[in-house]
């Protein structure tokens, strides 16, 4: 175990796999522009390359390289930049295996930060997870801790399918204990971050620490919240969530996205269908206000879910 920031843990995951498997590539904009670059120095310019600002070609090239047997990791920096190449992400990469009747596989990782809610304003602050989670053939990963950042990245690289790996910008420097040596975190297994019996709180990314902080505040009032972090939303470990609902009968779902673009709506709908009997209260979502993200600090803070809103939602479902 070593303490390291989330961002270093992501890199550790990439290193682990690049050392192990010569077919892993790592490329994207504004990396590896000198020979001293950590990855270029370690793995050479065959496997580590800087690209132009051409997301469509970058992701398209990753797809072709994957079909030809390599395992590309594309550095995208910000999830929004995938929008200019959305066809490659949702209508190319995840389709080829299927349309070819299983002849090809397309193992690649699209690594992108998201949720830059510290003044990045209207076009760089989105939480786009829901755009990807429902696409058959695509996997979607959202680490919220340094350990998961490493282990989920390694698993993403070994996975034989296209994976969207979304790391949260506000967690970049969060320190965490990270297992040394080979470390893999399985897909489709939610983590119960805090056990509790009164209410189930589900959150992803930056909303996980906010949910945990809210649980801490609630504990002082004698309310015991179970906080679940799905870690991967495709595949989604509904089982762990439903098991918790069976126990608590009450659910609050927290998402940094706007309500009708949220992952939580998908989960809420699944709970409403599969746990009608177990529910003792409405399934409540705490999501961003329905707006483009404003630049000005107090306005930005106003529209993003915070501990107070999570606490209030939990109190409401307990009434």
């Amino acid at each position, binding site marked *: 175990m070593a303490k390291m920031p989330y961002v270093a843990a992501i890199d550790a995951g990439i290193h682990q796999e690049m050392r192990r498997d010569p077919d892993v590539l790592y490329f994207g904009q504004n990396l590896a522009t000198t020979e001293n670059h950590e990855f270029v120095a370690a793995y050479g310019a065959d496997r580590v390359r800087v690209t132009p600002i051409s997301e469509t070609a970058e992701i398209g090239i*990753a797809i072709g390289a*994957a079909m*030809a047997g390599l395992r590309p990791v594309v550095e995208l920096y910000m999830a929004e930049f995938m929008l200019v190449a959305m066809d490659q992400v949702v209508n190319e990469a995840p389709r080829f295996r299927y349309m070819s009747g299983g002849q090809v596989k397309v193992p690649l990782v699209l690594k992108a930060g998201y949720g830059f809610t510290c003044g990045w304003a209207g076009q760089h602050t989105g939480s786009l997870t829901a755009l990807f989670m429902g696409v058959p053939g695509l996997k979607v990963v959202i680490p919220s801790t340094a350990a998961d950042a490493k282990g989920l990245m390694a698993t993403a690289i070994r996975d034989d399918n296209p994976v969207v790996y979304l790391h949260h910008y506000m967690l970049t420097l969060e320190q965490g204990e990270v297992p040394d040596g080979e470390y893999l975190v399985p897909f489709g297994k939610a983590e119960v971050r805090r056990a509790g019996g009164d209410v189930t709180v589900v959150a992803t990314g930056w909303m996980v620490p906010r949910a945990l902080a809210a649980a801490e505040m609630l504990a002082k009032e004698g309310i015991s919240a179970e906080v679940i972090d799905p870690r991967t939303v495709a595949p989604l470990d509904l089982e762990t969530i439903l098991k918790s609902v069976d126990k608590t009968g009450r659910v609050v779902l927290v998402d940094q996205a706007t309500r009708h673009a949220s992952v939580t709506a998908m989960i809420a709908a699944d709970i409403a269908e599969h746990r009608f009997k177990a529910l003792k209260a409405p399934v409540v979502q705490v999501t961003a206000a329905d707006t483009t993200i404003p630049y000005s600090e107090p306005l930005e803070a106003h529209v993003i879910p915070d501990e107070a809103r999570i606490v209030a939602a939990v109190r409401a479902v307990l009434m």
Partner: protein
Amino acid sequence: MSLQPPNAERQIWMFTQMVRIRTFEERVKRTFIDHPGVIRGHTHLADGAEASIVGSLSHFREGDAALATYRCHGYPLALGSDPKAMMAEIYGRADGLCKGLGGSMHLTDVKRGFLGTSGIVGAGIPHAAGAAWSAQIRRKGNVVLSFFGDGASKQGAFHETLNIASLWKLPVVFVMENNGYNVVTTTAQEDASAAAGEPLAVKAKAHAMPGVTVDGTDPLAVYQTVGEAIERARAGQGPTLVESKVYRLSAHGNIIAPPGVPLHYPEHEAITVFGKREEYEAALRGDPVPRFRGALVQNGILTAAKADEISSRVASEMQEAVTFALNSPFPKVESALKYNFA
């Protein structure tokens, strides 16, 4: 670079492949009349482009790869795919090349180096560059061929990819089949170069890449031009844009007809939309298949009798493909849920 022309045997092989593509496409087209309802969705034929396809793929070696678009029936035939499995795919059957999951627009035959086809215009061009990156770092002198239409050069993906391929000297050849039309739009109506009377190969100039134009109805000219580009690529000198000028002899596709309207192939849009029957008839006079046959007979490479024999052998082959495909069962419905994930 200079390339030996193909020997007689190879030319006969080329002719045979051209006839196979043409005959296959004729059988696809006839299916709409003979067996209505058997082909669904949107189907795009390669008739008119046979010389370009075969001339390009004559240089294919073990380990090379080709990628194309929805207009994809020609390439796998030239690469050795089984026309029975291809027709079964187009008919949506269990014995289809892609198990009935892909259909006409998505023929794929990885064993023969035909890696994938995208139905989204321009989207497959970077895939070819990606496969070329793999070839580059594996250092076995392999090359990738990327086939797409003139219209595709209006997608950003085309330019983004050409820039990277040139910058990285990837072993890829971009073969633009310029058939003068994007569906019902002429190149001059949608392309500033064409409107200015320039060849589309000029687009290579934006990316420090050689751009050449070739008569895509002449298989030997294509053999030469694409062959040189392939040699360059194999030698590590980077990509080339080849504009191969062809004319499609059928309509763009079997009509984007909403449910209720029977699918069929009307005449080429030059006639149905623009009323330019002469343009179409001139193209027909230049039809690459009879023209190459004529040249081979004239040069003594083939006798008329031998040419006829090839045609009738191919006719039986494609009749068998149709029969096989018609008799192939539909896939089991559960198979619809397979293959989303590896």
